[in-house]
């Protein structure tokens, strides 16, 4: 890494303002002049020694007191060299603009739109710079700026756009959508020019049976063929990142449950891992095993959910009920483990909330014995079905280069033949202590992604089985008194513990000043948390890298040229959950 940084410094002596290497967290940050960001980024992307081909995330931090107020943060990943780098560029409040890197990474398009939307930084050269999570006509500013109030804005009547109950509803006048508003969803120009232009704009969602929540897609159609597909996100935007800035570190955990509500456990895991990295806490071994087992159970649940819904979208109804049968068994175990079934709030900073009981181990083992058979059962219903194969083979093909360029992760990337899996690249938990494989596809079509996920379920079962055998006895919470409250039983009996408990829960704990990015392999892809800490008990900035959101960036690319029916297949193959996508 060091030679690369030196080369970077010598190649751009004026552009690179400084390089910080955080050896404890194994992170490298380069501060770059905003004016030269594209040059540096292109060099990092193109140079073989660097080859940062995967853009993980772009976010922004607001420092109101600094002369250059806004900081744009680029998280890059080199798949070839398995290392990450963070680029930071500062822009001023008077001229909040920076050149767009969409020419280098196509995936940057959605990420930059988000930064523009929430922080108000303009990206020069961006092809379609509109608001993405907030409505187009949102006039109250950019919420992630520190001067945007975090509190509520009053009651119902203070929102002029919410219909008042005591007033008669505004009469809906029928009529066409103005031509001007349609323009955003149409292809700029058609090739040839001789072709008669007869496009049909079809609005799909947010109320549609198969948009997996409140996703809206505007399709430009030529017959039933898709000319352009424009996702319109943000119908479920709750401002989790802004909310987190007003909460103590441990108060954020329940909010992560609601990101990808199908797989709440992995969200918890991703978040507590990031905080632990920031605090430099080591988790006891038993807790690591429990965390790994639970995360893999959650992966199976997530994939079962995906399989059921994807098959249901394509019209195979029965698979849905069969997968939910198995999902139910696992949810019952979650209920036994922590009392909840969907929003679990189970992981704690420094460990987990409750331990596996012997009874639960027996139940889980019994489940694992029958589970591979069940996976084969689903396979029989689909894999040997010519209609299913016809509906998934060669649909929504994305090449490995494009998939990397768009910043895709998880099964969506692995279906294209890239073996990037955070669990292997940067092992955490006990993934390096058990044997398992990363399944990869070949062609990058829906069928391959289907196959990858099916295989992942089998691998997860394998991981759980090994973990259950290896799991040692021991504590499930780390012993770090300034961060972790004492066990509840002690709090009720012991004065010191009560005070200790009280202090942590009222004041929170204060991590050191610093920042860290931590990615975790969620069932949908890499779920990353970027935390900036200013030494206070609340995160100064918490950025969630949501895989669903970034996958939507490649939607148009994957949908063009296919039929309306295939749109449904693409929704399914992404395995999107809008709670995570819109945050």
């Amino acid at each position, binding site marked *: 890494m060091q030679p690369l940084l030196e080369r970077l410094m010598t190649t751009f002596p004026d552009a690179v303002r400084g390089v910080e290497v955080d050896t404890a967290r194994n992170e490298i940050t380069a501060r770059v002049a905003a004016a030269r960001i594209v040059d540096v980024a292109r060099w990092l992307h193109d140079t073989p020694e660097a080859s940062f081909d995967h853009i993980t995330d772009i976010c922004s931090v607001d420092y109101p007191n600094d002369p250059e107020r806004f900081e744009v943060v680029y998280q890059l990943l080199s798949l070839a060299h398995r290392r990450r780098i963070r680029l930071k560029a500062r822009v001023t409040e008077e001229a909040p603009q920076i050149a767009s890197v969409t020419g280098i990474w196509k995936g940057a398009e959605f990420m930059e739109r988000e930064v523009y939307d929430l922080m108000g930084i303009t990206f020069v050269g961006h092809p379609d710079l509109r608001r993405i999570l907030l409505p187009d006509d949102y006039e109250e500013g950019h919420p992630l700026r520190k001067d945007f109030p975090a509190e509520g804005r009053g009651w119902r009547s203070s929102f002029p756009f919410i219909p008042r109950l005591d007033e008669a509803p505004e009469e809906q006048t029928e009529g066409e959508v103005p031509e001007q508003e349609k323009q955003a969803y149409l292809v700029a120009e058609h090739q040839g020019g001789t072709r008669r232009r007869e496009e*049909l704009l079809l*609005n799909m969602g947010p109320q549609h049976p198969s948009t997996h929540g409140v996703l809206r897609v505007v399709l430009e159609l030529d017959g*039933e063929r898709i000319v352009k597909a424009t996702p319109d996100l943000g119908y479920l935007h709750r401002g989790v990142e802004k909310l987190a800035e007003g909460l103590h570190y441990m108060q954020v955990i329940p909010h992560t449950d609601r990101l990808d509500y199908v797989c709440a456990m992995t969200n918890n895991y991703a978040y507590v891992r990031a905080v632990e990295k920031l605090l430099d806490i080591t988790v006891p071994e038993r807790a690591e095993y429990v965390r790994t087992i639970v995360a893999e159970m959650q992966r199976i649940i997530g994939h079962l959910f995906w399989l059921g819904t994807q098959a249901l979208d394509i*019209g195979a*109804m029965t698979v849905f009920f069969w997968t939910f049968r198995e999902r139910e068994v696992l949810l019952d175990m979650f209920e036994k483990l922590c009392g909840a079934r969907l929003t679990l709030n189970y992981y704690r900073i420094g460990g987990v909330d409750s331990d596996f009981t012997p009874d639960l181990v027996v139940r889980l083992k019994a489940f694992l014995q029958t589970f591979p058979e069940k996976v084969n059962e689903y396979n029989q219903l689909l894999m040997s079905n010519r*209609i299913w194969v*016809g*509906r998934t083979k060669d649909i929504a093909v994305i090449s490995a280069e494009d998939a990397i360029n768009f910043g895709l992760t998880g099964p969506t990337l692995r279906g294209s033949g890239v073996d990037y899996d955070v669990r292997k690249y940067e092992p955490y938990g006990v993934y390096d202590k058990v044997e398992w494989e990363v399944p990869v596809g070949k062609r990058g079509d829906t069928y391959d992604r289907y196959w990858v996920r099916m295989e992942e379920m089998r691998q997860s079962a394998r991981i759980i089985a090994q973990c259950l055998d290896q799991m040692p006895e021991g504590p499930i919470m780390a012993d770090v008194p300034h961060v972790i409250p004492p066990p509840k039983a002690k709090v009720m009996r012991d004065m010191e513990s009560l005070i200790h408990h009280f202090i942590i829960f009222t004041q929170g704990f204060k991590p050191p000043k610093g920042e860290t990015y931590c990615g975790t392999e969620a069932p949908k892809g890499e779920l990353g948390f970027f935390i900036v800490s200013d030494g206070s008990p609340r995160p100064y900035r918490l950025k969630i890298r949501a895989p669903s959101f970034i996958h939507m960036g490649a939607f148009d690319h994957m949908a063009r040229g296919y039929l309306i*029916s295939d749109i449904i297949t693409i929704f399914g193959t992404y395995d999107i959950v809008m709670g995570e996508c819109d945050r």
Partner: protein
Amino acid sequence: MEIGLRLAVSLAQIAAVMGVVMLTVMVLTLAERKVLGWMQDRMGPMEVGPYGVLQPIADGLKLFFKEDIIPAGANKFMFTLAPILALVPAMIGFAVIPFGPSMTIELFGMQIKPFVISDINIGILYILAFASIGAYGIILGGWSSNSKYSLLGGLRSAAQVISYELNVGLAIVGVILLSGSLSLVKITEAQAGGFWNWFVIAMPFPQIFAFVVYVISSVAETNRVPFDLPEAESELVAGFFTEYSGMRFAFFFIAEYANMILVSCVAAALFLGGWNAPYPGTILGHLGLDALAWIENVVWFAAKVYFFLFLFFWLRATLPRLRYDQLMRFGWKVMLPIALGNIVLTAIAAYFFPR
């Protein structure tokens, strides 16, 4: 006087057939959900009445009391007409179906055939003709709703019905060649005397290919899974009837189920011997109860029809939906050549080995 009586008898017959069909539709809505539930490890409807048997009544009441909405910008006349156009042809087809043996009874000095409303000599053409009109209901419903989803559903339906009706028609030709008649009564009678005389396996040329083509095409014609593209829920919300509510929606719904029954009846009559038992004569007839033999025949007919209806449910539980282009390719490139080849071979066989 005699005309009046004849009319009264015909009306009574129509009322009886309509009653049976509507009752079957009710049973089907429940049976479908129960069968699907059984195949999918769940119970199906369980709340209304014991084991949910009263569910169809609850559904019917609900639909009856729902608000009838006509969307803004819809063509009101067409919008109102479409459900009727869909339902009436589905019902009218039953007029030529022989439900039981073709006997005549004397009533008020008139010859009456109790098990067929009207034995016209072009019965099968009549059914095909009215089935085509049913497609207008769907297309008009899709077009007049002033909704893009409905329009797409209607267009898909138009393409699908045209492609698959052709196959239905061609599949039937083989049977007509062998039986030498277009009347369903005659066709059924030609298959008497045991299951080896049923056209699906009868010599000189078994119509097994035509049978398969007919069954698949009729699934497509009734817009059922895996050919339910006009109403593909996950793509087009509800396709051509997206904008319909209340009783108008119920009309489309009943039409779909009535169509299912109709094509099942036709399949049973054309290929599986209609009301004929799979053995010569009837057991009751052999026992000397000739007067009651019709019961056995009617039961056999019902059993065959229900076998087809079960097949519809079974397909729905098993298969994903085809895509539009795959559907068209399958219809024109696979089914049509098979149906045409079957006609040629049947014609040759029928010429050399006349029955």
